[in-house]
Each structure stands twice: as C-alpha cells, then as structure tokens.
C-alpha cells in the first residue's frame, strides 16, 4: 500500500490498518523519517518537498513490489508527504509485516534505502542564506547498492519463527 499526501499521518492508525485481521504476522518493523532542525552546519527553519506526481506513485509501487518479491511479507506500507514541513514533522513512513522478524527488518530497511535514491522527491531547505536544494548523498547510493550484492541473504521460512 502506498500513499503520497500533503497531510500528516498517524503511525498507530497506519500500522493498525496494515496488520488488522492477519494473525499470521509475527513481526512488524517500521521506520519514520522526520525533518531535522540541523543539516550539516546550517540551521533549518523549514523545508519544502517537491515531487513528480504520477511517477512518484509508480516508483513507490515498484519499490514495494520488489520488497515483496525478495522477502516473505504479509504487508508493506509507504506513506510519503510533500509540501511545506517544519522541523520535527514526519516526512515518510515505511513498514513491513512478516511472520518472521528478520524479514520484517530487512524489508523495512530495503524500502527506505531504495525510496531514498529512486522515488522522485526533492528537498528545498530554508536556511539563513535562503532556499537550498539538498544534495543527494553518496551514503544513500551505497545503502541502495548494498541490496544489489549477491551476498544479501533472504531468510527462509524454515528456521526463524517469530
């Protein structure tokens, strides 16, 4: 399930919907990204998230599908906001539910890593020197690439009941 919206979201409500009625879920891992008041050494008073309507939804749907292909998941969720946000505001929620804890953790980590380099969002930060577009980071590209290594193990169903 993916959603792109200007409004804030309630983590509890979102996760409840994701797991409701499925008692075969043993583990639910989620990650929330928030606006920090500091980035590097510039103080951030606010930021604006621009995105590419249409392509964003396609990209997020594709990222979810890839996670579900790699791990045995009961459900996944991506909610991403756009528009003007303040320090402390929630930007994104990703979550993965599985029978098994390792699958939930790895899939959730994968979702945010891939989203960061593949979903068409751009951050414009308000700084004391005016608006500044955030640069893409090498560490994010590396975080994405690590999921492409042949060594990444996909847990089997057999030996890791939650």
């Amino acid at each position, binding site marked *: 399930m993916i959603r792109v919206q200007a409004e804030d979201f309630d983590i509890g409500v979102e996760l409840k919907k994701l797991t409701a009625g499925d008692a075969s879920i043993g583990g639910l891992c989620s990650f929330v*990204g928030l606006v920090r008041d500091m980035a590097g050494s510039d103080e951030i008073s606010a930021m604006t998230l621009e995105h*590419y309507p249409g*392509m964003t939804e396609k990209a997020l749907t594709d990222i979810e599908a890839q996670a579900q292909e790699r791990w045995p998941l009961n459900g996944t969720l991506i909610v991403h906001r756009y528009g003007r946000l303040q320090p402390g505001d929630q*930007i994104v929620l990703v979550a993965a539910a599985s029978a098994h804890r390792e699958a939930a953790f790895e899939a959730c980590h994968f979702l945010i890593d891939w989203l960061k380099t593949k*979903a*068409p*969002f751009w*951050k414009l930060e308000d700084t004391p020197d005016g608006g500044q577009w955030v640069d893409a980071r090498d560490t994010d590209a590396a975080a994405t690439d690590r999921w492409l290594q042949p060594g990444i193990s996909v847990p089997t169903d057999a030996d890791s009941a939650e």
Partner: protein
Amino acid sequence: MKIMYFAWVREMTGKPEENIELPEGLATVHQLVAWLKLQDDVYQRAFADESMIRVAVNQEYVSGDGPISNDDEVAFFPPVTGG
C-alpha cells in the same frame, strides 16, 4: 512531446513543463538535450553539467541513450533527495 522539469532544473529553465514538437531526427535523450541547448541559453545553463541530471521517459528512469518519440513525457531533474 511534453517536457517536465523539477527542483533546481525547473528553477533554471524557469518553467515546470512545456510542450514541443519533436524535430525529425531526434531519437535519444542525449539528442534532445543537445537540441534544447541550441534553442536558448537557459537550457545551456540548466544542462551545463549533465552528470547532475536524471531523466525519466514516461515516468521510468532512462539513460542518455534512451529512445524518445513525440508522444512521450520526458522529465529532467536532479538526483532525488526524498525519504
């Protein structure tokens, strides 16, 4: 062809999108960019460092030699920074 620009590429071209008639003989993203640069200085500046530009054709990432046609939606933007 619909061309879209996002983030600082949009700011540099001065418009979020435009519709053009794709000239005969332009078959790849690279060729489209080269042609745009000939049309106006704003494209010269926006595409000065092509390594900083990402391209999507019909909302899918493509490389510079990706094929284009007059019915396509082509988008130019910086590396993404969401999440």
